[in-house]
Each structure stands twice: as C-alpha cells, then as structure tokens.
C-alpha cells in the first residue's frame, strides 16, 4: 500500500518536474493552457509569445516548402507598434514615402484601396504581433471580410504584398511563384524569340521563291 503511494508520488513528481521548467516550449504552453479545457481549439488557443505555434498554424510554407512567407521576419514585426522607434514617423504621414515596395500591390494600385483599410489597428500593428488584426487566426475576419464576403483563413493566405516576382527575394520568400513565373516567361518569351523571326524569315523565303521562280514544292 505504502509502496504503491510512493510510486504514484514519484511518478507525479517526475511528470511535474518534467513539465514545469519547459514553460517556453510549445508543448508546455499547450499543457498549461489546456487544463480543464476540451483541447478542441488548442491550435488557435495560444498565449502571446509562442511564435512557434503561431508560425505553424500561420499561413505559408506548404507544398513541400514552396509556399509563401518563407523569408526572414523583422523583430519589429512582432511589436504592437512597429513605428515606435522609427524617427520622423507620425500617423498622418503618407505610408508610401517609406514603404515603396508595399505600395506596389494590386489592391493599392488597381483598386485604389488605402493601406489603412487593411492595416486597421491604431497604432498600426506589426503583422506578426499576436493581437494584430493581421494574425492569420483572425486576418480573414478582421481584414479581408470587410470587403470579401465569406473570406476564410485559407483565402486570407493570399499574399497581398507579393515580392517582386522575378527577384532573388521571391525565390527565397515564395519559391513556387518565382519558379512558375520564370517558367511561363521563358516559355512565352521563347515562342516569340524563336517564332517571330522565323515567321519573317519564312515569308522572305516564300516571296523569294515566287519572285525568282523557284517552286515551293521542289
């Protein structure tokens, strides 16, 4: 009887010690967070700071690592106010003055949508900040669904600010897009580079054959 209680106590101690210091690991976060919980929402029910889980449930990767958002992330992206340390920043300034690359997306250039219609929080949150409207667990609802009825998390995985597609940056950040666009461009370019001059050459040859009476069919 006593031996059995001792055994239970030892096992309990080992388990507790095993879990306790691992507070920063994802497993421990889940174990702490799921006490008395169903566990159904454990994928989205995370605590601030566990980026690892955030990135796992986040958008991107996928398809053998060829998907988007694989490039490095700046530290400030995890900040509530990424502009807090930016000199000369104030909310009234034109975003394009500093973010030229981000102003090249289709929503901005074609549809005349302003940055703030998507970057809704004030102060504008870093896109990797846990409570940011851009967090993939709520981006579809807080941002996209304002205009796209029924937007889902998958839909919100559309990359708004595409990397410049032919750039080396794109190869790192969104390899599939980079390879697909290069493939299509080489294919399309190849057709023109080969067949447009060839068509010209053929026409010259055919006219020459007619003019100088050398028959087409040998």
């Amino acid at each position, binding site marked *: 009887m006593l031996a059995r209680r001792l055994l239970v106590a030892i096992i309990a101690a080992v388990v507790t010690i095993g879990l306790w210091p691992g507070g920063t690991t994802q497993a421990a976060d889940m174990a702490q967070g799921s006490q008395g919980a169903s566990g159904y929402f454990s994928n989205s029910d995370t605590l601030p700071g566990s980026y690892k889980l955030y990135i796992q449930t986040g*958008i*991107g990767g*996928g*398809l053998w690592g060829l*998907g*988007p958002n694989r490039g490095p992330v700046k530290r400030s992206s995890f900040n509530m106010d990424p502009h807090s340390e930016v000199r000369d920043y104030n909310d009234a300034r034109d975003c394009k003055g500093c973010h030229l690359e981000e102003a*090249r997306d*289709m929503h901005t*250039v*074609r549809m005349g949508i302003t940055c703030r219609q998507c970057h809704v929080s004030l102060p504008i949150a870093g896109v990797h900040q846990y409570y940011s409207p851009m967090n993939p667990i709520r981006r579809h609802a807080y941002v996209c669904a304002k205009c*796209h*009825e*029924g*937007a*889902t998390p*998958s*839909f*919100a*995985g*559309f*990359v708004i600010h*595409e990397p410049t*597609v032919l750039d080396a940056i794109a190869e790192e950040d*969104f390899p*599939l*897009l980079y390879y*697909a*666009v290069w493939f*299509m*461009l080489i*294919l*399309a370019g190849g*057709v*023109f580079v080969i*067949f*447009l001059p*060839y*068509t*010209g*050459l*053929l*026409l010259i*040859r*055919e*006219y020459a*054959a*007619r003019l100088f009476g050398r028959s*087409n*069919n*040998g």
Partner: protein
Amino acid sequence: MADTTKRLIRFTPIQRLWHLGLIFIFILMTVTGFAWMYVETHWGQTLASWFGGIKETVEIHKIAGLVLLAGFVLHILYALCRVDWSKFPGSLYSPDLLMMGIRDFGKMIQHMGWTIGLCKAPRFERWAWWEKFDYWAVWWGFTITGITGLMLYNPVLTSDYMPGWMLNLALWIHRIEAVLAIGHVFTIHFLMAHMRPGTVPFNGAMFDGTITMSEARHDHPEWVARLEKNGELEAMSVPEPSVPLRVLYFGVGYIIMAFAVTLLAFAVINITAVTLL
C-alpha cells in the same frame, strides 16, 4: 486554266462559325483583359469606359470567359465525333484530322531546312505543321487560361479547395499566358494566315471555307493528290463565292485586324506604366 476559278472546300460551316465566334470573344477578352491589366493608365481607363467602368468590364471578362470555355467544351465534343472510332487508334492520325504525328515533326524540320536553303520543300498533306501548331496552341492557351481563370472567377470559393496563395500563382500564370496568346495571334497568326505570297492580302479560307485550286496544289500537293486518287476532287470543288460576300469579309476582317494590332501597339507603349510588372 479552269483551276483558278474552281475552289476546294477546306472548312465546314460549323468550323467557320466557331472560328468567327472565337474571333469576337477573343477580341472581347483582350479588350476587357487589357482594361484590367492597364487600369492604372489613361489607356486602360479608356478601354474600361467603353463598358461603363472597370467593375463592369471585369464582370464582362468573366462572363465572356465562361462562354469561351463552353465553346471549347463543345468543340472538344465535336472533335471527338470527327474521329472514326472503328479504326482507332490509327484513325487518329488521319490526314484530315489535326493530330500531330512524328511525320509532322519530320516535315517541320525539313520545312525549316528549306527556309534556310538547305533542302527541298516538304510536300504537305491537308494541314501544314504550323497550321497544326496554331490549332493546338489554342488548346494549350485555353487550358491554362481556363483553369486559372476559373480559379479567379470566385477567389473565395477557390480558396476552399486550395491555399489562398495559389491565387497569386493563378494571377501570374493567367496574365503571362494571355499575353502570349494575344501576342501570338496578333502577330504570327495574322502574318502566317494572310501575308504569305499565295494568299496576300487577305485569306478568306476561314470565312468562305474554300481555297483556290492553284493554292491548294502549291501548298498542299499531297492533299490534292489524295483527293484525285480517291476521285473525291470533283465533289470537293465549288465555284467562287460571290463578290459582295468577299468584299464584306475583306472589309470586316481588316477592320478587326487593324483594331487588334492597335491594341497590341498600345499595350506595348504602356507596358512600363504597369506597376505589377
């Protein structure tokens, strides 16, 4: 020569109708597609204003795309009906069909050799290799723009079946493939169809369905030889189409081609203003 006034049937009324429909929808897709692609420019907005605004333009582009795909599906059914299934698979390579075979590649090489003066010209059957290429290019183009176009038709629905970032891919592939198709049709296809010495200045074959006997003998000697051997030549010969009809399609044809080439020229001039590129 009686040869010059007699003409040989080359296309059936259904084929001509489909080609005519293809012309109009292709031009419509080009105009509405360019309007969207160039909407940042003055030219793009002018194109969009013809349809009452960019929203309406994109809507028309989508509907025209569906009509085009429906036509494509009907064409596939039609093409399947043209195959003599009792002699399958050999009948797939019947010279009246557009199936590509090893022989076509042989003749293509030989024809290229002739172009640069290396060998004698190949004797073509009913379809020369570039005509078959032209035909299959449409399949390739419709498949690629069709799949990506359907994906973009309703992006929210599409992302239920695949990650949303597949739409980034679809947009680029759709764009590049469409520009390839437009560039090909408005340059290479126009030149090869209308500007060759036997047909210049306008090739009506796709509109009245016939070509002159002399042109047939010159460009497709093996076809004429086969028809003569089988005694089918007489049955396939028809008189010249009426002059008003020829004037009509000559005029309309040139208006459409001039319009198309102008579109292409404006697209090239404005290309640097497109931010996404």
